[in-house]
Protein backbone atom coordinates (compact mmCIF):
# COMPACT_ATOMS: atom_id res chain seq x y z
CA UNK A 1 0.00 0.00 0.00
CA UNK A 2 1.27 3.50 -0.73
CA UNK A 3 0.85 6.70 1.26
CA UNK A 4 -1.93 7.91 -1.04
CA UNK A 5 -4.45 6.17 1.26
CA UNK A 6 -3.30 8.35 4.16
CA UNK A 7 -4.09 11.69 2.52
CA UNK A 8 -7.42 13.23 3.56
CA UNK A 9 -9.42 14.66 0.63
CA UNK A 10 -9.44 18.17 2.11
CA UNK A 11 -11.97 20.56 0.58
CA UNK A 12 -10.81 23.95 -0.61
CA UNK A 13 -12.37 27.21 -1.73
CA UNK A 14 -11.56 28.93 -4.99
CA UNK A 15 -11.26 32.71 -5.39
CA UNK A 16 -14.49 32.44 -7.43
CA UNK A 17 -16.35 30.96 -4.44
CA UNK A 18 -15.26 33.97 -2.40
CA UNK A 19 -15.86 36.60 -5.10
CA UNK A 20 -19.35 35.27 -5.75
CA UNK A 21 -20.22 35.27 -2.08
CA UNK A 22 -20.53 31.51 -1.70
CA UNK A 23 -18.26 31.53 1.35
CA UNK A 24 -19.48 32.85 4.68
CA UNK A 25 -16.80 34.80 6.53
CA UNK A 26 -16.47 36.84 9.67
CA UNK A 27 -13.96 39.64 10.28
CA UNK A 28 -12.03 40.84 13.29
CA UNK A 29 -9.85 43.94 13.54
CA UNK A 30 -7.32 43.50 16.36
CA UNK A 31 -6.91 46.49 18.66
CA UNK A 32 -3.50 45.97 20.22
CA UNK A 33 -1.29 48.99 20.91
CA UNK A 34 2.04 49.07 22.70
CA UNK A 35 4.29 51.60 24.41
CA UNK A 36 7.75 50.04 24.57
CA UNK A 37 10.49 50.97 26.99
CA UNK A 38 13.77 51.43 25.16
CA UNK A 39 16.00 49.90 27.84
CA UNK A 40 19.45 51.29 28.60
CA UNK A 41 21.38 50.17 25.51
CA UNK A 42 18.79 51.02 22.87
CA UNK A 43 17.81 54.17 24.77
CA UNK A 44 21.36 55.50 24.37
CA UNK A 45 21.49 54.25 20.77
CA UNK A 46 18.37 56.26 19.91
CA UNK A 47 19.63 59.31 21.84
CA UNK A 48 22.86 59.23 19.82
CA UNK A 49 20.89 58.89 16.58
CA UNK A 50 19.13 62.12 17.53
CA UNK A 51 22.57 63.69 17.93
CA UNK A 52 23.61 62.36 14.52
CA UNK A 53 25.93 59.61 15.73
CA UNK A 54 26.09 55.80 15.77
CA UNK A 55 27.20 54.14 18.99
CA UNK A 56 28.09 50.58 19.99
CA UNK A 57 29.20 48.69 23.11
CA UNK A 58 32.51 46.94 23.68
CA UNK A 59 33.06 43.67 25.54
CA UNK A 60 36.59 43.50 26.96
CA UNK A 61 36.44 39.70 27.27
CA UNK A 62 35.83 38.81 23.61
CA UNK A 63 37.02 42.22 22.39
CA UNK A 64 34.00 42.69 20.17
CA UNK A 65 32.41 46.07 19.59
CA UNK A 66 28.76 45.38 18.84
CA UNK A 67 25.97 47.32 17.14
CA UNK A 68 23.08 47.48 17.93
CA UNK A 69 24.50 48.01 21.44
CA UNK A 70 23.60 45.69 24.32
CA UNK A 71 24.43 45.91 28.03
CA UNK A 72 25.33 42.21 28.15
CA UNK A 73 27.56 40.14 25.87
CA UNK A 74 25.60 37.14 24.56
CA UNK A 75 28.87 35.28 23.83
CA UNK A 76 30.74 35.83 27.13
CA UNK A 77 27.50 36.21 29.12
CA UNK A 78 28.78 39.07 31.22
CA UNK A 79 28.12 42.83 31.21
CA UNK A 80 29.63 44.75 28.31
CA UNK A 81 32.25 47.29 29.40
CA UNK A 82 32.06 50.55 27.53
CA UNK A 83 30.36 52.76 25.00
CA UNK A 84 32.19 53.24 21.69
CA UNK A 85 31.31 55.99 19.23
CA UNK A 86 31.37 54.56 15.71
CA UNK A 87 31.59 56.14 12.28
CA UNK A 88 28.48 56.77 10.22
CA UNK A 89 30.07 54.94 7.31
CA UNK A 90 30.18 51.28 6.45
CA UNK A 91 30.25 48.52 3.86
CA UNK A 92 27.26 46.87 2.19
CA UNK A 93 27.24 43.24 3.42
CA UNK A 94 24.18 42.35 1.34
CA UNK A 95 21.21 44.11 -0.28
CA UNK A 96 17.94 43.50 -2.10
CA UNK A 97 15.97 45.38 -4.76
CA UNK A 98 12.42 45.10 -3.49
CA UNK A 99 9.54 45.65 -5.92
CA UNK A 100 6.66 44.79 -3.58
CA UNK A 101 5.25 46.07 -0.32
CA UNK A 102 4.63 43.70 2.58
CA UNK A 103 1.08 43.06 1.34
CA UNK A 104 2.24 42.35 -2.21
CA UNK A 105 1.46 45.68 -3.86
CA UNK A 106 3.80 46.49 -6.77
CA UNK A 107 6.40 49.26 -6.61
CA UNK A 108 7.75 50.73 -9.84
CA UNK A 109 10.96 52.02 -8.25
CA UNK A 110 12.50 49.42 -5.95
CA UNK A 111 13.27 49.99 -2.30
CA UNK A 112 16.85 48.97 -1.52
CA UNK A 113 17.16 47.41 1.93
CA UNK A 114 20.67 46.40 2.94
CA UNK A 115 22.72 45.10 5.82
CA UNK A 116 25.57 47.54 6.38
CA UNK A 117 28.66 46.63 8.41
CA UNK A 118 29.43 49.77 10.42
CA UNK A 119 32.97 51.19 10.54
CA UNK A 120 34.45 51.12 14.02
CA UNK A 121 32.46 48.04 15.09
CA UNK A 122 33.87 44.53 14.91
CA UNK A 123 33.91 42.69 11.60
CA UNK A 124 30.46 41.53 10.52
CA UNK A 125 28.56 43.86 12.88
CA UNK A 126 25.85 45.12 10.56
CA UNK A 127 22.56 46.95 10.90
CA UNK A 128 19.61 46.92 8.54
CA UNK A 129 18.89 50.15 6.70
CA UNK A 130 18.02 51.50 3.26
CA UNK A 131 20.29 52.63 0.41
CA UNK A 132 19.55 55.81 -1.55
CA UNK A 133 21.01 58.16 -4.20
CA UNK A 134 22.17 55.12 -6.14
CA UNK A 135 20.84 53.44 -9.29
CA UNK A 136 19.50 49.95 -8.52
CA UNK A 137 21.79 48.31 -11.07
CA UNK A 138 24.84 50.02 -9.59
CA UNK A 139 24.49 48.63 -6.07
CA UNK A 140 27.20 46.13 -5.20
CA UNK A 141 28.08 44.04 -2.17
CA UNK A 142 31.24 45.57 -0.69
CA UNK A 143 30.20 49.10 -1.70
CA UNK A 144 31.26 51.83 0.75
CA UNK A 145 28.37 53.92 2.04
CA UNK A 146 27.76 56.88 4.35
CA UNK A 147 24.65 57.79 6.36
CA UNK A 148 22.48 60.64 5.09
CA UNK A 149 20.96 62.25 8.20
CA UNK A 150 17.76 64.19 8.61
CA UNK A 151 18.35 67.86 9.53
CA UNK A 152 19.12 68.05 13.30
CA UNK A 153 15.84 69.79 14.13
CA UNK A 154 13.80 67.01 12.52
CA UNK A 155 15.49 64.11 14.29
CA UNK A 156 13.40 62.27 16.85
CA UNK A 157 15.66 59.62 18.32
CA UNK A 158 14.68 56.96 15.82
CA UNK A 159 16.47 54.76 13.29
CA UNK A 160 14.72 56.88 10.63
CA UNK A 161 16.86 59.86 11.75
CA UNK A 162 19.12 58.32 9.13
CA UNK A 163 17.21 58.73 5.86
CA UNK A 164 19.36 56.15 4.07
CA UNK A 165 22.99 55.34 3.29
CA UNK A 166 24.54 56.55 0.02
CA UNK A 167 27.73 55.51 -1.78
CA UNK A 168 30.87 57.61 -1.37
Amino acid at each position, binding site marked *: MTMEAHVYPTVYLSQKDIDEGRALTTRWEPNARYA*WDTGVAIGRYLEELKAGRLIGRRCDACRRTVIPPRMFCEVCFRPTDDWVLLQDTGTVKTFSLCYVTWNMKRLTEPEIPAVIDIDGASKGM*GIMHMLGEVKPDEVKIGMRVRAVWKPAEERQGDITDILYFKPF
Partner: protein
Amino acid sequence: MRRVAIVGAGMTRFVRRAQETGKELAWEAASKALESCEMTLDDIDCVVIGTAPEAFDGVHMKAEYLSDGAGAWRKPMLRGYVGGGTGVFSPLQGWYHIASGLFDTCLVVCEEKMSSCQPHPQGAFLTIFDNMTERQLEPNLLWIFALEMNAYMNRYGLSKRDIAQVSVKNKRNAALHPAALLGDAEITVEDVLASETLAWPVQRLDVSPVTDGAVALVLSSDTVARRTTDKPVWIEGVGWNLDTAYWTNRDLSYPTYVEEAARMAYKMAGITEPRKQINIAEPYDPFDYKELHHLEGLMLFDKGKAPEATALGITQRDGDLPVCPSGGLLGVGNPIAAAGLMKVAELFWQLRGEAGARQVPGRPRRGVAQAWGDLMQVGTVIVAGI
Protein backbone atom coordinates in the same frame (compact mmCIF):
# COMPACT_ATOMS: atom_id res chain seq x y z
CA MET B 1 17.03 6.26 26.67
CA ARG B 2 14.47 4.03 24.99
CA ARG B 3 14.26 3.56 21.23
CA VAL B 4 11.41 5.46 19.59
CA ALA B 5 9.72 4.55 16.30
CA ILE B 6 7.40 6.30 13.90
CA VAL B 7 4.57 3.84 13.27
CA GLY B 8 1.90 5.87 11.49
CA ALA B 9 1.49 9.00 9.35
CA GLY B 10 -1.35 10.88 7.71
CA MET B 11 -1.98 14.30 6.21
CA THR B 12 -4.53 16.57 4.60
CA ARG B 13 -4.16 17.83 1.09
CA PHE B 14 -2.19 21.07 1.13
CA VAL B 15 -4.47 23.77 -0.32
CA ARG B 16 -4.48 27.52 -0.84
CA ARG B 17 -7.65 28.13 1.16
CA ALA B 18 -9.21 25.26 3.05
CA GLN B 19 -12.92 25.19 3.66
CA GLU B 20 -12.15 23.39 6.94
CA THR B 21 -11.28 25.21 10.15
CA GLY B 22 -7.90 24.63 11.78
CA LYS B 23 -9.45 22.15 14.22
CA GLU B 24 -11.00 20.21 11.36
CA LEU B 25 -7.70 20.10 9.45
CA ALA B 26 -5.98 18.82 12.62
CA TRP B 27 -8.66 16.12 12.94
CA GLU B 28 -8.32 15.07 9.29
CA ALA B 29 -4.57 14.54 9.63
CA ALA B 30 -4.73 12.96 13.10
CA SER B 31 -7.47 10.51 12.13
CA LYS B 32 -5.57 9.50 8.97
CA ALA B 33 -2.40 8.90 10.99
CA LEU B 34 -4.23 6.76 13.58
CA GLU B 35 -6.02 4.84 10.82
CA SER B 36 -2.68 4.18 9.06
CA CYS B 37 -1.42 2.15 12.04
CA GLU B 38 -4.83 0.80 13.08
CA MET B 39 -4.85 2.67 16.36
CA THR B 40 -7.60 4.65 18.06
CA LEU B 41 -7.25 7.60 20.40
CA ASP B 42 -7.47 5.14 23.32
CA ASP B 43 -4.04 3.84 22.30
CA ILE B 44 -2.48 7.31 22.56
CA ASP B 45 -0.77 8.30 25.83
CA CYS B 46 0.08 11.93 25.04
CA VAL B 47 -0.18 14.56 22.30
CA VAL B 48 2.25 17.12 20.91
CA ILE B 49 0.75 19.94 18.85
CA GLY B 50 2.84 22.12 16.58
CA THR B 51 1.49 25.29 15.05
CA ALA B 52 3.30 28.51 14.17
CA PRO B 53 2.28 32.15 14.76
CA GLU B 54 -1.02 32.65 16.62
CA ALA B 55 -1.46 35.78 14.55
CA PHE B 56 -2.29 33.69 11.46
CA ASP B 57 -5.51 32.48 13.03
CA GLY B 58 -6.02 35.46 15.31
CA VAL B 59 -6.74 33.15 18.24
CA HIS B 60 -4.97 32.96 21.58
CA MET B 61 -3.35 29.69 22.80
CA LYS B 62 -3.60 28.22 19.34
CA ALA B 63 -2.56 24.67 20.22
CA GLU B 64 -5.18 24.57 22.96
CA TYR B 65 -7.70 25.92 20.45
CA LEU B 66 -6.76 23.07 18.08
CA SER B 67 -6.56 20.46 20.84
CA ASP B 68 -9.93 18.76 20.40
CA GLY B 69 -9.28 18.23 16.71
CA ALA B 70 -5.76 17.02 17.46
CA GLY B 71 -6.92 14.26 19.81
CA ALA B 72 -5.70 15.91 23.02
CA TRP B 73 -8.97 15.67 24.96
CA ARG B 74 -8.11 14.59 28.53
CA LYS B 75 -4.54 13.77 27.66
CA PRO B 76 -1.17 15.29 28.57
CA MET B 77 -0.52 17.82 25.80
CA LEU B 78 2.53 19.91 24.96
CA ARG B 79 2.89 22.61 22.33
CA GLY B 80 6.24 22.89 20.63
CA TYR B 81 6.84 26.26 19.06
CA VAL B 82 10.00 27.36 17.29
CA GLY B 83 8.42 29.28 14.42
CA GLY B 84 9.21 27.72 11.05
CA GLY B 85 11.32 25.06 12.77
CA THR B 86 8.23 23.73 14.57
CA GLY B 87 7.40 20.93 12.13
CA VAL B 88 10.64 19.08 12.90
CA PHE B 89 10.76 20.24 16.54
CA SER B 90 7.34 18.72 17.40
CA PRO B 91 8.23 15.07 16.59
CA LEU B 92 11.53 15.71 18.38
CA GLN B 93 9.50 16.57 21.50
CA GLY B 94 7.37 13.47 20.94
CA TRP B 95 10.63 11.54 20.80
CA TYR B 96 11.74 12.60 24.28
CA HIS B 97 8.29 11.98 25.76
CA ILE B 98 8.76 8.31 24.80
CA ALA B 99 12.56 8.00 25.02
CA SER B 100 12.34 9.18 28.64
CA GLY B 101 10.06 6.28 29.50
CA LEU B 102 7.22 8.59 30.51
CA PHE B 103 4.86 7.49 27.70
CA ASP B 104 4.58 4.57 25.24
CA THR B 105 2.74 6.38 22.45
CA CYS B 106 2.52 9.97 21.25
CA LEU B 107 0.35 11.57 18.58
CA VAL B 108 2.16 14.50 16.95
CA VAL B 109 -0.09 16.91 15.03
CA CYS B 110 1.09 19.99 13.14
CA GLU B 111 -1.45 22.35 11.62
CA GLU B 112 -1.37 25.71 9.88
CA LYS B 113 -4.13 27.74 8.29
CA MET B 114 -2.48 30.78 6.77
CA SER B 115 -5.37 31.87 4.54
CA SER B 116 -7.39 33.51 7.33
CA CYS B 117 -4.90 36.33 7.81
CA GLN B 118 -5.82 39.39 5.73
CA PRO B 119 -4.76 41.03 3.53
CA HIS B 120 -1.68 38.80 3.53
CA PRO B 121 -0.16 36.50 6.20
CA GLN B 122 3.14 38.37 5.75
CA GLY B 123 1.51 41.01 7.97
CA ALA B 124 1.62 38.55 10.86
CA PHE B 125 5.33 38.07 10.29
CA LEU B 126 6.37 41.71 10.45
CA THR B 127 6.79 41.55 14.22
CA ILE B 128 9.90 39.40 13.71
CA PHE B 129 11.75 42.64 12.99
CA ASP B 130 13.15 44.45 16.03
CA ASN B 131 10.49 46.71 17.51
CA MET B 132 12.95 49.49 18.40
CA THR B 133 15.52 49.58 15.61
CA GLU B 134 14.05 47.94 12.49
CA ARG B 135 10.27 48.12 12.25
CA GLN B 136 10.38 51.88 11.77
CA LEU B 137 11.96 51.19 8.35
CA GLU B 138 8.67 49.52 7.31
CA PRO B 139 10.37 46.27 6.38
CA ASN B 140 8.93 43.47 4.32
CA LEU B 141 9.44 39.84 5.33
CA LEU B 142 10.91 39.05 1.92
CA TRP B 143 13.84 41.34 2.71
CA ILE B 144 15.43 38.88 5.12
CA PHE B 145 15.37 36.11 2.55
CA ALA B 146 16.51 38.33 -0.28
CA LEU B 147 19.38 39.68 1.82
CA GLU B 148 20.45 36.19 2.83
CA MET B 149 20.11 34.81 -0.72
CA ASN B 150 22.20 37.65 -2.14
CA ALA B 151 24.88 37.13 0.53
CA TYR B 152 24.99 33.41 -0.34
CA MET B 153 25.17 34.05 -4.10
CA ASN B 154 27.87 36.67 -3.67
CA ARG B 155 30.01 34.55 -1.35
CA TYR B 156 30.25 31.66 -3.81
CA GLY B 157 29.75 33.48 -7.13
CA LEU B 158 26.42 31.76 -7.85
CA SER B 159 23.90 32.79 -10.48
CA LYS B 160 20.12 32.90 -10.27
CA ARG B 161 20.10 29.97 -12.69
CA ASP B 162 22.17 27.84 -10.27
CA ILE B 163 19.54 28.35 -7.63
CA ALA B 164 16.40 28.15 -9.79
CA GLN B 165 17.15 24.48 -10.49
CA VAL B 166 16.06 23.67 -6.94
CA SER B 167 12.62 25.13 -7.50
CA VAL B 168 12.28 23.18 -10.76
CA LYS B 169 13.34 19.89 -9.14
CA ASN B 170 10.99 20.27 -6.18
CA LYS B 171 7.94 21.40 -8.14
CA ARG B 172 8.49 18.49 -10.54
CA ASN B 173 8.83 16.03 -7.64
CA ALA B 174 5.63 17.41 -6.15
CA ALA B 175 3.71 16.64 -9.35
CA LEU B 176 3.67 13.05 -8.06
CA HIS B 177 2.57 13.94 -4.51
CA PRO B 178 -1.16 13.35 -3.98
CA ALA B 179 -1.39 16.17 -1.42
CA ALA B 180 0.61 18.80 -3.34
CA LEU B 181 -0.56 22.36 -4.00
CA LEU B 182 2.02 23.42 -6.58
CA GLY B 183 3.30 20.31 -8.35
CA ASP B 184 4.28 21.01 -11.97
CA ALA B 185 5.85 18.29 -14.10
CA GLU B 186 6.55 20.71 -16.97
CA ILE B 187 8.20 23.64 -15.17
CA THR B 188 11.62 24.78 -16.43
CA VAL B 189 14.43 26.98 -15.17
CA GLU B 190 13.33 29.57 -17.75
CA ASP B 191 9.90 29.76 -16.08
CA VAL B 192 11.50 30.50 -12.71
CA LEU B 193 13.84 33.12 -14.19
CA ALA B 194 10.94 34.76 -16.05
CA SER B 195 8.65 34.93 -13.01
CA GLU B 196 7.84 38.27 -11.40
CA THR B 197 10.65 39.85 -9.35
CA LEU B 198 9.49 40.36 -5.77
CA ALA B 199 12.62 41.36 -3.87
CA TRP B 200 15.62 40.71 -6.09
CA PRO B 201 17.19 38.18 -6.09
CA VAL B 202 13.91 36.56 -4.99
CA GLN B 203 11.36 35.99 -7.77
CA ARG B 204 7.86 34.57 -7.52
CA LEU B 205 8.82 30.97 -8.35
CA ASP B 206 11.76 31.00 -5.91
CA VAL B 207 9.20 31.14 -3.07
CA SER B 208 6.87 28.57 -1.54
CA PRO B 209 3.16 29.45 -1.45
CA VAL B 210 0.82 30.50 1.35
CA THR B 211 -0.88 27.21 2.30
CA ASP B 212 -3.42 25.55 4.61
CA GLY B 213 -2.88 21.98 5.80
CA ALA B 214 -2.06 19.53 8.58
CA VAL B 215 0.12 16.46 9.07
CA ALA B 216 0.20 13.91 11.91
CA LEU B 217 2.54 11.13 13.03
CA VAL B 218 2.13 8.37 15.59
CA LEU B 219 5.29 7.67 17.61
CA SER B 220 5.74 4.70 19.92
CA SER B 221 8.17 2.83 22.11
CA ASP B 222 10.02 -0.22 20.79
CA THR B 223 7.58 -2.69 22.40
CA VAL B 224 4.47 -1.01 21.01
CA ALA B 225 6.13 -0.55 17.61
CA ARG B 226 6.85 -4.26 17.27
CA ARG B 227 3.25 -5.24 17.90
CA THR B 228 1.89 -2.42 15.72
CA THR B 229 3.87 -2.75 12.50
CA ASP B 230 6.48 -4.92 10.82
CA LYS B 231 8.02 -1.78 9.32
CA PRO B 232 8.83 0.65 12.14
CA VAL B 233 10.95 3.67 11.19
CA TRP B 234 13.29 4.52 14.07
CA ILE B 235 14.12 8.02 15.19
CA GLU B 236 17.89 7.58 15.41
CA GLY B 237 18.99 11.09 16.24
CA VAL B 238 17.57 14.52 17.10
CA GLY B 239 19.21 17.91 17.32
CA TRP B 240 18.35 21.57 17.59
CA ASN B 241 20.34 24.76 17.98
CA LEU B 242 19.77 28.50 18.17
CA ASP B 243 21.87 31.37 16.80
CA THR B 244 21.79 35.02 17.90
CA ALA B 245 18.64 37.07 17.37
CA TYR B 246 20.89 39.97 16.25
CA TRP B 247 20.52 38.66 12.70
CA THR B 248 22.39 41.52 11.03
CA ASN B 249 25.48 40.47 13.03
CA ARG B 250 25.45 36.92 11.62
CA ASP B 251 27.28 35.40 8.66
CA LEU B 252 24.28 35.36 6.33
CA SER B 253 25.90 33.00 3.83
CA TYR B 254 26.14 29.94 6.10
CA PRO B 255 23.70 28.49 8.69
CA THR B 256 26.05 27.55 11.53
CA TYR B 257 23.06 26.76 13.77
CA VAL B 258 21.96 24.03 11.29
CA GLU B 259 25.45 22.54 11.41
CA GLU B 260 25.36 22.50 15.23
CA ALA B 261 21.91 20.86 15.23
CA ALA B 262 23.05 18.29 12.66
CA ARG B 263 26.19 17.48 14.67
CA MET B 264 24.00 16.77 17.70
CA ALA B 265 21.64 14.51 15.73
CA TYR B 266 24.43 12.71 13.84
CA LYS B 267 26.31 12.00 17.05
CA MET B 268 23.22 10.43 18.58
CA ALA B 269 22.61 8.40 15.41
CA GLY B 270 26.24 7.24 15.28
CA ILE B 271 26.74 8.98 11.94
CA THR B 272 30.38 9.84 11.29
CA GLU B 273 30.22 10.24 7.51
CA PRO B 274 26.85 11.82 6.70
CA ARG B 275 27.49 11.80 2.94
CA LYS B 276 27.82 8.01 2.96
CA GLN B 277 25.40 7.14 5.72
CA ILE B 278 22.41 9.27 4.72
CA ASN B 279 20.37 8.12 1.72
CA ILE B 280 17.64 10.79 1.51
CA ALA B 281 17.46 14.40 2.69
CA GLU B 282 14.45 16.62 3.29
CA PRO B 283 16.03 20.00 4.11
CA TYR B 284 13.75 22.99 4.68
CA ASP B 285 13.04 24.74 1.36
CA PRO B 286 10.67 27.71 1.84
CA PHE B 287 12.88 29.42 -0.76
CA ASP B 288 14.99 27.57 -3.33
CA TYR B 289 18.35 28.90 -2.03
CA LYS B 290 17.42 27.67 1.46
CA GLU B 291 17.58 24.03 0.31
CA LEU B 292 21.18 24.64 -0.82
CA HIS B 293 22.04 26.61 2.31
CA HIS B 294 20.65 23.85 4.53
CA LEU B 295 22.28 20.98 2.59
CA GLU B 296 25.60 22.67 3.30
CA GLY B 297 24.68 23.23 6.97
CA LEU B 298 23.74 19.53 7.20
CA MET B 299 27.29 18.85 5.93
CA LEU B 300 25.96 16.82 2.98
CA PHE B 301 27.91 19.06 0.58
CA ASP B 302 30.88 21.37 1.01
CA LYS B 303 30.18 25.05 1.55
CA GLY B 304 29.08 26.62 -1.73
CA LYS B 305 28.97 23.25 -3.52
CA ALA B 306 25.30 22.26 -3.19
CA PRO B 307 24.36 24.17 -6.39
CA GLU B 308 26.93 22.23 -8.41
CA ALA B 309 25.63 18.92 -6.98
CA THR B 310 22.12 20.00 -7.97
CA ALA B 311 23.27 20.82 -11.52
CA LEU B 312 24.86 17.36 -11.77
CA GLY B 313 21.56 15.70 -10.85
CA ILE B 314 22.89 14.25 -7.59
CA THR B 315 19.86 15.59 -5.69
CA GLN B 316 17.24 14.31 -8.17
CA ARG B 317 14.91 11.54 -7.01
CA ASP B 318 17.07 8.98 -8.83
CA GLY B 319 20.38 10.68 -7.96
CA ASP B 320 22.98 9.60 -5.40
CA LEU B 321 21.38 11.72 -2.69
CA PRO B 322 17.69 12.39 -3.40
CA VAL B 323 16.79 15.76 -1.86
CA CYS B 324 13.18 16.74 -1.19
CA PRO B 325 11.72 13.75 -3.05
CA SER B 326 8.38 14.87 -1.56
CA GLY B 327 8.48 18.07 -3.58
CA GLY B 328 9.27 20.10 -0.49
CA LEU B 329 7.68 23.34 0.56
CA LEU B 330 8.21 24.75 -2.94
CA GLY B 331 6.05 22.02 -4.47
CA VAL B 332 3.84 20.38 -1.85
CA GLY B 333 3.24 23.71 -0.11
CA ASN B 334 4.22 25.61 3.02
CA PRO B 335 1.65 25.49 5.84
CA ILE B 336 4.48 26.43 8.25
CA ALA B 337 4.45 23.81 11.04
CA ALA B 338 2.70 21.18 8.91
CA ALA B 339 5.30 21.63 6.16
CA GLY B 340 8.16 20.58 8.44
CA LEU B 341 6.25 17.54 9.68
CA MET B 342 5.41 16.64 6.06
CA LYS B 343 9.17 16.19 5.59
CA VAL B 344 9.39 13.70 8.45
CA ALA B 345 6.31 11.91 7.06
CA GLU B 346 8.06 11.71 3.68
CA LEU B 347 11.06 9.99 5.29
CA PHE B 348 8.61 7.55 6.94
CA TRP B 349 6.93 6.71 3.63
CA GLN B 350 10.17 6.57 1.63
CA LEU B 351 11.95 4.33 4.16
CA ARG B 352 8.95 1.97 4.25
CA GLY B 353 8.78 1.86 0.46
CA GLU B 354 5.30 3.41 0.49
CA ALA B 355 5.97 6.63 -1.40
CA GLY B 356 4.24 5.33 -4.53
CA ALA B 357 5.19 7.18 -7.71
CA ARG B 358 7.74 9.25 -5.74
CA GLN B 359 9.58 6.23 -4.34
CA VAL B 360 13.33 6.74 -4.54
CA PRO B 361 15.14 3.72 -5.94
CA GLY B 362 17.70 1.60 -4.09
CA ARG B 363 15.82 0.88 -0.84
CA PRO B 364 16.96 3.87 1.21
CA ARG B 365 17.77 2.98 4.81
CA ARG B 366 18.32 6.34 6.46
CA GLY B 367 17.13 9.91 5.96
CA VAL B 368 17.46 13.34 7.51
CA ALA B 369 14.76 16.02 7.80
CA GLN B 370 15.47 19.59 8.86
CA ALA B 371 13.55 22.80 9.43
CA TRP B 372 14.49 26.38 10.19
CA GLY B 373 12.68 29.13 12.01
CA ASP B 374 12.32 31.24 15.15
CA LEU B 375 13.82 34.66 14.34
CA MET B 376 15.49 33.05 11.29
CA GLN B 377 17.97 31.45 13.67
CA VAL B 378 16.95 27.92 14.73
CA GLY B 379 17.90 24.61 13.12
CA THR B 380 15.87 21.49 13.98
CA VAL B 381 17.04 18.08 12.73
CA ILE B 382 15.74 14.49 12.86
CA VAL B 383 17.55 11.42 11.55
CA ALA B 384 15.26 8.45 10.84
CA GLY B 385 16.20 4.96 9.70
CA ILE B 386 15.05 1.37 9.33
